[in-house]
């Protein structure tokens, strides 16, 4: 825990970060940029896990260990997503979001 900072403040921070990530996801026109907003969201959640663990039950280390796994998962997911985007780029030489609008009526 951080001296002088209550849990509420940290959680407000993560909330704001999370919603910035959502805004970015909904607004961006580039696939890689969308992925980056995704990273923001994941990071916000990792902070949340660690903070709540630290503040509320410091003896039990569940949340903190779990956030390690979150990082590992985020890494794997990013790798795969970027691989797909690369492949898509090879097929159609653009990574604009308009490219993947195939499944419409």
């Amino acid at each position, binding site marked *: 825990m951080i001296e002088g900072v209550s849990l509420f403040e940290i959680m407000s921070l993560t909330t704001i970060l999370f919603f910035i990530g*959502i805004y970015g*996801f*909904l*607004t*961006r026109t580039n696939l890689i940029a*969308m992925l980056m907003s995704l990273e923001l969201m994941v990071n916000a959640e990792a902070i949340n896990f660690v903070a709540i663990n630290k503040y509320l039950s410091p003896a039990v280390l569940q949340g903190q260990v779990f956030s390690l796994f979150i990082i590992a998962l985020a890494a794997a997911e990013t790798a795969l997503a970027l691989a797909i985007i690369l492949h898509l780029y090879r097929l159609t030489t653009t990574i604009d*979001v308009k490219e*993947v*609008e*195939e*499944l*419409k*009526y």
Partner: protein
Amino acid sequence: MNAFSYIYLIPLIPLLAFLFLGFTAKKIKEPVSGYVGTAGLLTVFGLSLYTAYKYFFEVGLVNGKYEPYKVMIKEGWVHFTDKLAIDIGILVDPISVMMLIVVSTVSLMVHIYSLGYMHSDTGFSRFYAYLSLFTFSMLGLVLSSNLFMIYIFWELVGVSSFLLIGFYFEKPSAVAASKKAFIVTRFADMFFLIGILMVGYFGQSFDFETLNSPSTYETIQAWIVNHQIFSFMGLSLFTWALILVYIGGMGKSAMFPLHIWLPDAMEGPTPVSALIHAATMVVAGVYLVARLFPLYYHIEDGAALRVVAVVGAFSALFAAIIALTQEDIKRVLAFSTMSQIGYMMLALGVSGFEGHEGLGYMAGMFHLFTHAMFKALLFLTAGAIIHAVHSNFMKDMGGLHKYMPVSSFVFLIAALAISGIPPFAGFFSKDEILTAAFEYDKFLWLIGFLVAGMTAFYMFRLYFRIFFNKQTDYGDHKPHEAPKTMLIAMVFLAFLTIVAGFIPFSELISADRMPFHSHIHWGDPLVIASILMAASGIGIAYLMYYKETAYPQKVASAMGSGYKWAKNKFYFDELYIFITHKIIFDKISKPIAWFDRNVIDGFMNLLGVTVEKTAEKIKFIQTGRMQDYAMYFVSGVIAIVMFIVYFR
């Protein structure tokens, strides 16, 4: 019980023959299939004789009464309630054993006859398969132990009849006739089913033995007396149930007004007419009434029996009048059958119950027995004649006596029998019927008496016109006598016709199953009157038809429109067509069909169109853009969370 445990073999063997012949019809050529069918029937015939011998002379008679034996095959085949269930069982009883003899004998004769008649027909194996199916159905019908089982076999017999009448399915008239037969009998069976259900409901059982026992009918009679409000037009519900059951019998036995199918059924091959429409299927109605006779007699003093008698007498008269004018020999025989069955119904209707009073019952069954023999013989001979002359109509025949002496001889025997000339079989049975009728109602007796005279007349009209009358020149195709196989059957039946009259039937069959003694009182005025009536019928026919004369023409023109009406079967076919087409089809069926097509189908179409249009309107949601979907997703999640947090 154990004495007759083999009895299920009797219907089983023809069923197996049917299945075997049905599956191998294409591969087995004639005459092997014919031999297979005939072999099956020989076995059945032997078993039936054995059964009859055993039942009537060894085990049946217990304390002076013939006890019925029930062989249960499957108890509780269909369960409705604890008390009401359908079993599959066989009832061995004087009349069922008698019917076994009748059915197996006539069927065997027809099988042997068809070896010759259906020779070189392409459907030979199919014919024998159907014959076996029919024999199975009919044997099952006579051996049924309860009402539902008899209904099942009733329908099976109807189907076999349909298949056999429409045997020459390339002829449109045959197809139409088979449809007509099936539909008319099916229509009657609708009433039959309602009657069965009502009888089962009131009698708390479908089983014949239970229904016919005194406890049952006394209970029902007591109920009727106590519940007078459940009556309709003066007759109680149960009597109506019995009448409805009888209507089913009327359809099968071609009683007026459900007789229209029988003349058309002559489109089938002649052996079929002999088997089904002379001797066995058409007597199913008579058999049904005989089966339920204690109920018919005891409920409301035999009110239902009166209906039976009146319908029978009227049908006999109606058919006899029409038969006087027909030109097609098979049609004459068909109407003659209808008339004789009318006699049988009349006999049952005027019968009493105990001992000698049950003369009508006994006489009716006896007439059934003898009629089967001589009517089958008549049909088989007609088949031989048609085979020889290649035409059904009397105008193409004449003077056949010198070409076909044997056929002529057996035909004469059968004609004498049907006219009621002693000592042939028909005399005994017919005379006992008339005696019973005389005791019951003089008017019915009078009708029977007149019909006897008409029967003699039209039978001999037929005989003389075929075998004597004009000497037709047959050109190159001189008619030849029937082949051996056909003659064997005919001669055997003729033999039976001669001797059957002497069977002491009343010792075997009676209404309350106790044998009684009856014999013909040779001095009785009734007997003498009926013999004279028959003789005069024959005499008039002889005068008019033995040589070619102008009498028939003069009589016909003297009768005028009456003759025309009788010749056209009183226009009943046209009446029925009018009723069904103009009234039922146009007024009832067409509006319903319109409703079905437009309203119901239209509603379904409306549902489909609505879905389609709605989908058109909302398909803009599928943009394909991932971000829009994410938008919806996020909004949805937020909405749910807010709902849970703030409004729960």
